[in-house]
């Protein structure tokens, strides 16, 4: 009896992997599936196969992302931006837009920029751009809850902190 790889596994894999890897990877899976189906049972082979596909998703996705440099740079910058957002919200909740909050936030953004530069060298540059866009949008939308001095300060504090993080990383790697 000939055992064929389940369509669902084929469909998932063919959408995840790049064209060059598709044929050998799906072929490998089909070979092992057929082997297990005849040696054990079709249901055990199916279970194994779906587990393999499921477990392959993070590795294959990460490999594809890291192969395209600008996508991974944007991805790292986006993660850093989320981290900055979390820091900013937490600090502002505690200090209610007090200048002290800015003093606390600054080194934290430097640290985030430093970590981001370690993963992708130009990620803090994208992060600084994202912060500028966010502050501009915040200023244009004129949210009354955010004081004007805070918005103006953030035009400088966010990007400068991100750049200092990059500079520190470059100094360390010399």
């Amino acid at each position, binding site marked *: 009896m000939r055992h064929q790889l389940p369509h669902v596994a084929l469909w998932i894999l063919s959408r995840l*992997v790049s064209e060059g890897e598709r044929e*050998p990877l799906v072929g490998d899976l*089909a070979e092992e599936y057929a082997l297990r189906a005849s040696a054990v049972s079709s249901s055990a082979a199916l279970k194994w196969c779906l587990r393999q*596909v499921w*477990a392959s998703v993070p*590795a294959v996705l*990460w490999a594809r992302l890291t192969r395209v440099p600008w996508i991974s740079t944007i991805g790292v910058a986006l993660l850093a931006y989320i981290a900055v957002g979390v820091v900013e919200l937490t600090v502002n909740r505690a200090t209610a837009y007090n200048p002290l909050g800015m003093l606390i936030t600054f080194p934290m953004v430097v640290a985030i920029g430093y970590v981001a530069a370690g993963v992708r060298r130009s990620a803090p540059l994208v992060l600084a751009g994202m912060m500028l866009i966010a502050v501009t949008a915040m200023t244009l939308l004129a949210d009354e809850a955010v004081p004007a001095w805070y918005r103006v300060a953030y035009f400088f504090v966010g990007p400068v902190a991100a750049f200092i993080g990059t500079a520190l990383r470059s100094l360390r790697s010399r």
Partner: protein
Amino acid sequence: MKKREEPLGSLEHIVMLAVMRLGSDAYGMTVRREIENATGRDMSIGAVYATLVRLESKGFIKSHTGEPTAERGGRAKRYFRTTAEGEGALRNTRAIIEKMSAGLKGLQVT
């Protein structure tokens, strides 16, 4: 300028060794099986391929396409083999591990 030799990551190290052990029969699924048999580690085929492709982009392994077979639904295998540069990276990684482990008690493999 001499290129700086970076040691292999642990996964890269294991996959390189599996490719070397398998010789001319090294392709995705045999590499996965070899790792599972030798280490008990149930690695996904996706992780194996991601590592193989990364190693190839670093010039540590080379690949070529085999003939399609019926048991694989007419799909061809992609065979891998280590390069001289890859074997150099393996030696370098091994030397680092040996230097770092030298003199440490309790690290003998039984």
